């Protein structure tokens, strides 16, 4: 199994790496650089959670520098890597009042960023639907409000990224699945569905069902964990055998 490092991203440019490893990660002047990097991730379909968290931290420390679109872009990017904890880790760095139920803030015009809170909470709703593998509801919610179209607009290929990620998760659990279920989960029908399944996933459609090739995760083979015996465990015994010839 390959080692994964949370703080590593293969696409990270050197100047970002330098800032992240030094105290400049706290310097409000780097906000611009990080924000530009978020835009690059949105455009190039790359992703760097550790750097985005550094930007959210700068916003947390300097709320007057915070830009709503940048924050929501980071959250939308984090959705594309569900079911990882990234989205939650981003939420943890936002102002505590953003998750407060909206209804109570209407009565108070002073809480001026109600639209922002609403955006965050709507994205959180999507995240919870994804985390509970309720993909059909995810697509329904996404189509239910124009707000989402605005929120995901900056993230290039959002829908395709989501479909690919859903397919990845499905393939871990499924050897064969009804076409109708998968159509709902991917929100694709007819020719588009066939195309995605054959071309992008490389799976086979067999009448009313779709076959997912065997992989390590969907085998579900029973295994027996055997004891791992190290020679060291016997060292005392062997030592004693020398000390007291029986």
């Amino acid at each position, binding site marked *: 199994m390959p*080692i994964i490092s949370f703080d590593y991203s293969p696409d990270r440019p050197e100047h970002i790496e330098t800032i992240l490893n030094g105290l400049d990660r706290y310097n409000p002047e780097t906000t611009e650089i990080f924000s530009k990097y978020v835009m690059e991730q949105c455009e190039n379909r790359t992703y760097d959670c550790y750097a985005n968290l550094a930007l959210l931290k700068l916003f947390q420390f300097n709320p007057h520098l915070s830009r709503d679109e940048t924050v929501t872009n980071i959250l939308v990017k984090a959705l594309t890597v569900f079911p990882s904890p990234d989205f939650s880790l981003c939420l*943890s760095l936002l102002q505590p009042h953003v998750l407060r139920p909206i209804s109570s803030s209407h009565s108070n015009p002073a809480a001026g960023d109600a639209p922002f809170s609403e955006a965050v909470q709507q994205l959180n709703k999507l995240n919870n639907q994804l985390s509970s593998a*309720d993909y059909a509801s995810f697509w329904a919610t996404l189509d239910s409000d124009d707000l989402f179209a605005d929120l995901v607009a900056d993230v290039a290929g959002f829908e395709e990224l989501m479909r690919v990620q859903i397919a990845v998760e499905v393939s871990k659990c499924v050897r064969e699945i009804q076409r109708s279920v998968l159509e709902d989960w991917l929100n694709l029908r007819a020719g588009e569905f066939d195309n995605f399944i054959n071309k992008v996933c490389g799976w086979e459609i067999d009448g009313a069902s779709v076959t997912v090739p065997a992989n390590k995760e969907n085998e579900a083979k029973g295994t027996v964990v055997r004891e791992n015996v190290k020679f060291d465990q016997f060292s005392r015994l062997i030592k004693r055998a020398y000390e007291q010839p029986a």
Partner: protein
Amino acid sequence: MSLRQGAAPARPLADESDAEEDALVEDYREQVRYDNNDTQDTFTSFDPQGAIAAQLAAVAAPLDFQATLDTKLASYDLYCSLFHYFLNSEGPIDIEPPSHNWAWEVIDEFIYQFNSFCSHRQKLAQKGDNQEEIQIMRDNQHTWGCYSVLNVLYSLIQRSQIAEQQAAIKRGEDTAQYAGEYGNRPLYRSLGYFSIIGLLRVHCLLGDFSLALKTLDDIELNKKSMFARVMDAHFTTYYYVGFSYMMMRRYADAIRMFSHILVYVSRTKNYNKNAQYDNITKKNDQMYALIAMCVAFQPTRLDDTIHTAIREKYGEQFNRMQRGGPESLPIFEEMFRGSCPKFISPTPPDFDNPEINVDPIEHHLAIFMDEVKNNMWSPTVKSYLKLYTTMDLKKLAGFLEVEPEKLRSQLLVNKQRSRQVRWSEGFLLDGEVVNSSDLDYALQGDLIHVSEVKIGRRLVDWYLRNLARTY
């Protein structure tokens, strides 16, 4: 506001006259950017001419529980001038730490006061009734600011070159050639070292769990580490590392951390019956609550002593969390509230709009509870699957009284959660994705194929024990 101010050119402290003393105060005042001089009369400065021993003891001692706000502000000033004196004097200060634990106690108390000050400020804003204290808070926006606290910790780390020293220890080299003028002195070395632990704690309090773990890159978590020599430090480190892992949903790693320290404490508690031990008892119980939550997420065989202690302390809650379902939600909430760190916001609250100030603890609780809700059916689903090798999805849905499509989703969720990043070697943030469940399954249409991971018999321990007896 920049952290690098800590390393700003120091004002020479040539002969310690009153004039110099005032200059020091001025310099420091500039650093924290006081907007006004109202605090002049409460100012308590560290005085290198005074009774050093008494002052060093004072900064390491807990503030009185009923200390007034003025005392708390003055205490901040005292810390600032002390650290300023240590960091920005001409060359390193030649003082031996008064006691073995002193450096830890100073950093610990410094962060504790920062933490409780921010919590207090938050409560003031939420209640909005104590106008007198609110006015004081408004006038002292920068007191106990997170930038100044981080500044102190990072400056101590840099001055002592502790990262370089720890890297040398990892390579098995002598630290002396990497420690520099400051880091070779015990005072700076231990302050620097415990500042790393302090950073772990501050990042965690601010909700930055990945950065909290990243901070410990330089420190090796083992019994030979410096923190292990101070019981309280040892304990604190494992609490915050374990908690950060839990919030990153790396439950196996969190359980490993909590188990390690809880077993350690249970073995050494007879030797540690002193004042420090009382502090530990509370955190100890909190960690039992945390490990119980982690085990509810991810069933794990625990060390017998820990398992027994959880049953004693949280038996009923533990059962209900393990059973899952909506009835478990209030238990998770209660346990989380009782055992989480006292989270803080880095910026002062909005005193003009008391109702928009949400307690950071509620914020983190809400995020955590979303994850609990997404997983709450897993125990039930798993308990049924264990009984079969193949099972029809619709039939199982009938047993569970849910719609088949809901169950299909739950099966996916349960499978995803069983695949977890787990540490194997290297830094704390590293790990590999492993199957952490003893149950695995795959869907073929509506047919669920179930397989089990069986643990083979463990013979070597038994064999060795009996051999040892016969010898």
